[in-house]
C-alpha cells in the first residue's frame, strides 16, 4: 500500500462520492422543470407542491455536489501533477467550458430556489430550464475530458513533450460521443429510478396520496424513457471500446484467449494465471455477435497484450457485470410499469410493482459507480491511454494516506447527514401534502 495506491483510492473515492450528486444535479432540475411545467399547463396545485419539494431536496444535493466537485478539480493537481502539467493545455478547454456552464447552473439555481416569489411563473420556469440545460452541458464537458484520457487526440508526442496541441480535436476525440451519451442518460436513469423509488415507498404507506401518484408518474416517465435508450447506448459504448481499447474490453468480458465465436461470460472467477474463468455463465458466440453482428467474428483476448498492460481483470469484469445486470433489472421493472400503463391501470394500485420500484431505486447509482470502475480501472495502468502511466503521474508528496482517510471520513459523514436530512424531509412533511382522497 504505497502512495500511488492511496492517491488512486482518494481519486476514486472523491469521484464515487461526487458522481452521485453530479448525476442528481443533472436529473433533479429536469424533474423540477417537468413538474412546474405541468403546473403551468394543468393548473393543478399538486404539481406546484411537487416542484417546490423536489427543489428543496435539490438545494442540499447541489450544494454538496458543488463543494465535492471543487475538491476534484484541485485533486487533479494535488494527486496527479505530472498529468496536469502535460495534459492541462490539451484538456483544460472542456474544464474551462464546464466552469462557465457550472457558473450558469449555480447562478440560476440560486434564482430558482430563492426567487420564486419575485418572478412570474413563466420566467421562474424558464430559469429552471436554464438550470437543467447548463447542468447537462457541464456534465458533457467534464465527460469529454475523461473520454480524452481513454482516446487521446489533438496532440503529437515528440520526445515526451506534447506538441501541435489542438484542444478542439482533443475534445472531439473518438470516445467523447459514446461516453457523453452514456453518462448523460445514466444521470436521468439513476435520478428517475431513485425518485420513483422514494415515492413508491411512500405510496405503499399512503396509497391514496395524489401527491405521490403524480410524483411517481413524472419520475417514471424520465426513468422509463431513458433506460431503453441507455441499454442501446451501452451497446454502442461496448463496440467503440472494443475498437479503441481492446484490452479494456477483454477485461470487461474476462476474455483471456483471442478467439472466433467468442462467448459472453457472466460472472465467474477470472484466473489470470490459468487464463480461464471458472464457474461463469456462458452464452456461446454472444460476444462476437454483440461486437460485430457476426457469430464467427474474431475478438482479441488479453493474451494479445503484455501482462503489465492489463487492468485488474476481476474488478473490471465484475463491475461490468454489475452494471449490466443493474441496467437490465431496471429495464424489466420499467417494462412491467409500461405494461400496466398500456392497460390503463394506475401503477400505484399494485403493491408488488411498487415494491419492485422501491427495490430498483438504488440500482441506477450502483450502475453508475460500477460503470466508472469499468472506465477508470479498465484504463489502467494508463492515466492517458497508451501515452502516460498512472504511476508516472502521481504526486511526489509522501503520506497520501492522510488526506485519503481525512476525505473518506468527511464524505462518509456528509453522506450520512444528507441521507438523514432528506429522509426526514420526506417523512415529516408526508402528512401535510395535498390529499383529495382521504383514506
Amino acid at each position: 500500500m504505497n502512495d500511488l495506491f492511496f492517491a488512486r483510492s482518494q481519486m476514486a473515492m472523491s469521484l464515487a462520492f461526487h458522481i452521485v450528486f453530479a448525476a442528481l444535479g443533472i436529473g433533479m432540475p429536469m424533474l423540477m422543470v417537468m413538474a412546474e411545467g405541468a403546473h403551468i399547463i394543468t393548473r393543478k396545485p399538486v404539481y406546484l407542491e411537487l416542484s417546490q419539494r423536489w427543489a428543496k431536496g435539490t438545494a442540499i444535493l447541489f450544494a454538496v455536489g458543488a463543494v465535492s466537485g471543487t475538491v476534484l478539480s484541485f485533486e487533479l493537481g494535488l494527486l496527479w501533477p505530472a498529468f496536469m502539467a502535460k495534459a492541462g493545455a490539451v484538456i483544460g478547454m472542456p474544464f474551462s467550458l464546464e466552469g462557465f456552464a457550472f457558473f450558469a447552473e449555480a447562478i440560476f439555481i440560486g434564482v430558482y430556489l430563492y426567487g420564486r416569489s419575485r418572478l412570474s411563473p413563466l420566467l421562474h420556469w424558464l430559469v429552471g430550464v436554464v438550470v437543467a440545460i447548463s447542468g447537462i452541458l457541464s456534465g458533457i464537458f467534464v465527460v469529454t475530458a475523461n473520454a480524452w484520457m481513454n482516446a487521446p487526440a489533438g496532440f503529437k508526442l515528440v520526445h515526451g513533450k506534447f506538441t501541435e496541441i489542438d484542444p478542439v480535436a482533443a475534445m472531439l476525440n473518438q470516445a467523447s460521443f459514446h461516453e457523453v451519451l452514456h453518462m448523460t442518460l445514466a444521470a436521468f436513469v439513476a435520478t428517475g429510478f431513485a425518485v420513483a423509488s422514494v415515492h413508491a415507498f411512500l405510496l405503499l404507506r399512503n396509497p391514496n396520496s395524489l401527491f405521490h401518484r403524480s410524483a411517481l408518474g413524472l419520475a417514471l416517465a424520465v426513468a422509463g424513457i431513458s433506460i431503453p435508450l441507455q441499454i442501446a447506448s451501452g451497446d454502442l459504448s461496448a463496440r467503440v471500446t472494443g475498437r479503441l481499447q481492446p484490452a479494456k474490453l477483454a477485461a470487461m468480458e474476462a476474455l483471456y484467449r483471442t478467439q472466433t465465436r467468442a462467448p459472453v461470460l457472466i460472472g465467474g472467477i477470472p484466473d489470470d494465471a490459468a487464463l480461464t474463468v471458472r464457474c461463469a455463465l456462458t452464452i456461446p458466440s454472444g460476444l462476437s455477435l454483440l461486437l460485430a453482428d457476426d457469430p464467427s467474428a474474431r475478438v482479441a483476448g488479453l493474451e494479445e497484450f503484455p501482462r503489465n498492460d492489463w487492468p485488474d481483470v476481476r474488478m473490471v469484469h465484475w463491475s461490468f457485470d454489475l452494471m449490466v445486470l443493474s441496467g437490465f433489472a431496471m429495464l424489466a421493472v420499467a417494462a412491467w410499469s409500461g405494461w400496466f400503463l398500456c392497460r390503463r391501470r394506475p401503477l400505484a394500485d399494485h403493491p408488488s410493482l411498487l415494491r419492485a420500484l422501491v427495490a430498483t431505486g438504488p440500482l441506477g447509482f450502483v450502475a453508475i459507480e460500477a460503470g466508472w470502475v469499468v472506465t477508470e480501472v479498465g484504463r489502467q495502468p494508463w492515466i492517458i491511454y497508451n501515452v502516460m502511466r498512472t504511476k508516472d503521474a502521481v504526486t511526489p508528496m509522501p503520506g497520501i494516506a492522510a488526506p485519503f482517510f481525512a476525505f473518506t471520513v468527511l464524505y462518509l459523514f456528509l453522506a450520512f447527514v444528507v441521507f438523514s436530512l432528506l429522509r426526514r424531509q420526506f417523512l415529516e412533511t408526508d402528512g401535510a401534502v395535498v390529499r383529495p382522497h382521504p383514506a
Partner: protein
Amino acid sequence: MLELAVTVSLLLSLILYALTGGADFGGGIWDFLAVGPRAERQRRAIAAAIAPIWEANHVWLILIVVVLFTGFPVGFATMMTALNIPVTLMLIGIVLRGSAFIFGSYKSQSADVQRHWSMAFGIASVFTPFLQGVILGALATGKIHVANDQVTTGFFSGWLTLFAIACGVFALGLFAFLAATYLTLDAKDQPDLQNDFRLRAIWSALALWPISGVVFLAARQGAAALFGGLASWWAPLLLGATCVTAVSALMALWWRQFAMARVAAAGQVTLIFVGWSLAQYPNLITPDVTVSSTHAPEATLRLLVMALAVGALILFPSLGFLFRLFKGNRRG
C-alpha cells in the same frame, strides 16, 4: 499577449472571488463572532444575505482553477505540489463551510443540531480564507524552487513563513471588513442590526491598518521581490488611491452612507489586489515560475481567451440578474 490576457482574466476572477466569495466567508466570520443579545438575529441576517448567492460566488474559485490549469498547466502542477498541504486543508474547509451552511438551513432539525452546524460553518469560514491568504502569500516568498518542472524545496516551503501567515490574517481582516460593510445594506430594515454591522465594519477597517503594516514589514524580508515591486513608479499612486478608498469607506460608515461605503470598500479591495498583482508580476511562483515561462501553447491560449470572452458575455448579464434580484433596491 495571449498569456497576458489570460493572466488579467485570472486576476479579474480573483478580485471578483474576493469581492463576492470572500465576503461570504466574511459573513461566516461574523456568524462565528456573533455575540450579545442580537446574536441570533445577526446570524439569521447573515444567512439570508448569502443564501441565494454563495454558490454562484463560489464558482469564481472553480473558474480560477480551471483557467489556471488550462493556461498555465506547469504553474498549476507546481503550486499543487509545493502547497499540497495548505491546499488540501483549504479544500476540507470549503467542503465543511458549504455543507454546514446548507445543512444548517434545514429547519426540521433541533436547535441543538442547528447550533452545531452554525459552529462548523463559522469555524470553516475562518480557517478557509486564512489558508487562501497563506497560499497566495506563499507564492511570493521566493522559498519555493523549481528545476525541470520539479519542485525541489519540498512540501513545507513558503507557506509556513511569517509573511504568508500575515497574508492569511490580512485576508481574514479584509473579508470580515467587506462582509460587515455589505451587511449594513442587507440589514437596512433593522436599524439595530445595521448599527451592529456598522460598528463591526469600522472596527475591522481600523484593524486592517496595523495588519497591513505587519504584512508590509514582513514582505521586506519574507517576499523581497514583491517588496521590490512596491518601489516602482506606480506604487505611490496606487497606495495613495488605496488609502483614499479606505478612508472614504471609513467615513461613509461613520456617517451611515452605506451604499457609498460598499462602493468604497469594494474599490479598496480591488486596488489591494491590483497592487499585489503588479508587484508579483511576472512571477506566478517567485522566482522560478513566471507567466512567460509556463504558459500553454498558443493554440490553447487563443481558444481559452475566446472562451473567456464568450463566457463573460453570458456570465455577467446572468450575475447582474442574480444580484439585482436579491441585492437590488426594492421596497418591502
